[in-house]
């Protein structure tokens, strides 16, 4: 105890409480608050700041997603060529990992807050009504983007490490850029659909279930439609021209829609659906429709939540 405190105590009372101090420092505006919410949500979407259990799925998803890039690096190092395409990556693996990641982590971002009724505590702060869902969406798009693009970058680095000369590096770079752009389309669409579906339920299990069921069922349905409409199945041996039905079958699933867009925009690698040919623009429209529906659902959900 300092002499001053002792004197005060001697003067007739002991001060135990240092009292309330007003905050006189700077107060950040709405843009900074939204950025803080994006950062906080991005951390929680990959399990940082949560328990060890919350990190399991993000870590495993990321590790598995990187495996093809690692395998490619090994193959290239042993004198081979790049074995994994930039525009499709390993399509089936990417679909599987994204379904698991989105279904597991989208509820982490929105369902928890719905479940514990935290939203009024956000809405009573200097945020606008839609700042919350848009910050969550931005964070989740960034998380999905990292999961898709970092393996692509590893693939690129593993390839150019052995490339002979600047022209080879330039070739690889030119091939990579469209792949990154397609990855961006994936991240935006899947994160939007995932968050919109997750925002419908405060119960994590329901949210995860509805996302997984939607993604899996439409994915299977797209394959089924492709088969029954002749596709590139046994009839043509996968080589002949696809039927109109097969060309359109990809529209039912977000993953095949994304692949239709890729092929329409000039992606050459073989995808899960036949090249859409003249139906290409339809895939572009479908992409926008799915995105608009997901964003509309998300906005409607939080417009309603804000006043209740």
């Amino acid at each position, binding site marked *: 105890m300092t002499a001053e405190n002792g004197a005060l105590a001697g003067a007739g009372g002991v001060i135990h409480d240092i009292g309330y101090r007003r905050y006189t420092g700077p107060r950040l505006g*709405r843009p900074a608050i939204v950025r803080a919410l994006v950062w906080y949500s991005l951390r929680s979407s990959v399990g940082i700041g949560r328990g060890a259990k919350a990190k399991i799925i993000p870590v495993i998803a990321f590790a598995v997603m990187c495996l093809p890039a690692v395998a490619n690096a090994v193959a290239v190092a042993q004198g081979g060529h790049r074995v994994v395409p930039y525009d499709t990556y390993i399509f089936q693996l990417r679909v599987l990992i994204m379904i698991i990641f989105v279904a597991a982590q989208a509820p982490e971002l929105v369902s928890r807050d719905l479940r514990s009724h935290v939203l009024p*505590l956000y809405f009573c702060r200097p945020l606008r009504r839609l700042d919350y869902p848009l910050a969550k969406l931005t964070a989740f798009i960034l998380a999905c983007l990292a999961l898709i693009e970092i393996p692509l970058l590893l693939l690129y680095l593993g390839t150019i490490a052995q490339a002979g000369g600047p022209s080879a590096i330039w070739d690889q770079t030119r091939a990579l850029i469209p792949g990154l752009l397609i990855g961006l389309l994936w991240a935006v669409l899947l994160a939007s659909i995932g968050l919109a579906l997750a925002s419908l339920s405060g119960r994590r299990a329901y949210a995860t279930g509805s996302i997984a069921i939607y993604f899996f069922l439409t994915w299977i349905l797209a394959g089924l439609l492709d088969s029954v409409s002749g596709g590139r199945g046994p009839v043509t041996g996968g080589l002949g021209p696809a039927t109109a039905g097969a060309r359109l079958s990809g529209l039912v699933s977000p993953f095949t829609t994304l692949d239709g867009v890729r092929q329409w925009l000039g992606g050459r690698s073989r995808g899960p659906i036949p090249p859409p040919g003249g139906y290409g623009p339809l895939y572009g429209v479908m992409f926008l429709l799915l995105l608009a529906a997901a964003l509309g659902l998300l906005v409607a959900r939080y417009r309603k939540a804000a006043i209740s």
Partner: protein
Amino acid sequence: MTAQLPLRAGPPGTPGPGPRAGAAVIETTALSKRYPGAVTALDGLTLQVEPGITGLVGANGAGKSTLIKILLGLLPPSSGQAAVLGLDCVREGQQIRALTGYMPEHDCLPPDVTATEFVTHLGRMSGLPPTAAKERAAESLRHVGLYEERYRQIGTYSTGMKQRAKLAQALVGDPRLMLLDEPTNGLDPAGRSAMLDLVARIGSEFGISMLVSSHLLGEVEQICDMLVVIDGGRLLRADSMTSFTQVSQVLLVEVDEGIAELAAELAARGLRPRQEERALLVQIASAATYDEVRDTVADLGLPLHRLEQRRRRVEELFREETA
């Protein structure tokens, strides 16, 4: 409807950004809110709230929560005006929310984070920079008495502790005004009085104005400087607590026998007694009332059991007014 309130401070300030000095903390004019389906939550509410602790009292469904949402700029009124700290609730809601702390009525805490993490995050959401948010979170939790338990997950808290954590998140941004919606909800009597003490301390010692809603009048009257009573979305009465107590001084007289006799005699002497259980209540008009009552009992030769001055509970006043 209009209500002439004795609480009016200076003249209304000039419009402009930022809180205006001298303005009432809360000011509403003919404020109405009708929900679809002909539900009227607020009906021409006009009131002024000055700095200090104000109780907002009304039965469940009287419009308390609707009023708080309008004040926070989260709900547009159907008609009329509302201003908080001199800021318009419709146009300047964002500025109002930067200066206001809100404690919702219902449970609003995630169970799987620690109080420190949660309050820090909400401090960030109130616009505090990272370091300041951490410091203010620790300080807020200390003020509400959760300092020792601040690293525990909120899910392990008791109801009383959860209410304190809710209060801490409202306090973290150093607000000018706190809106507390039923802060004693779900607490046992000991928890209630502890919470009320805490609210009273924040209101008086920290210099933060408070609007405390409750459906229990007897509860908030202990800590409030002012009282606003609404019923069915209308203002029933708004006044300072002192003006309530001025009219509420009564003398309680209890005799072992002959209560009817005493009542008759007091009435004859013009004191208008009112029976309450086994005692009589007499309005204290002046110091002479005490002598008058004493003399009456002595004259009748009744065994006096108890004679005490009592402040009538505000609740009784309203019961009379609405009856």
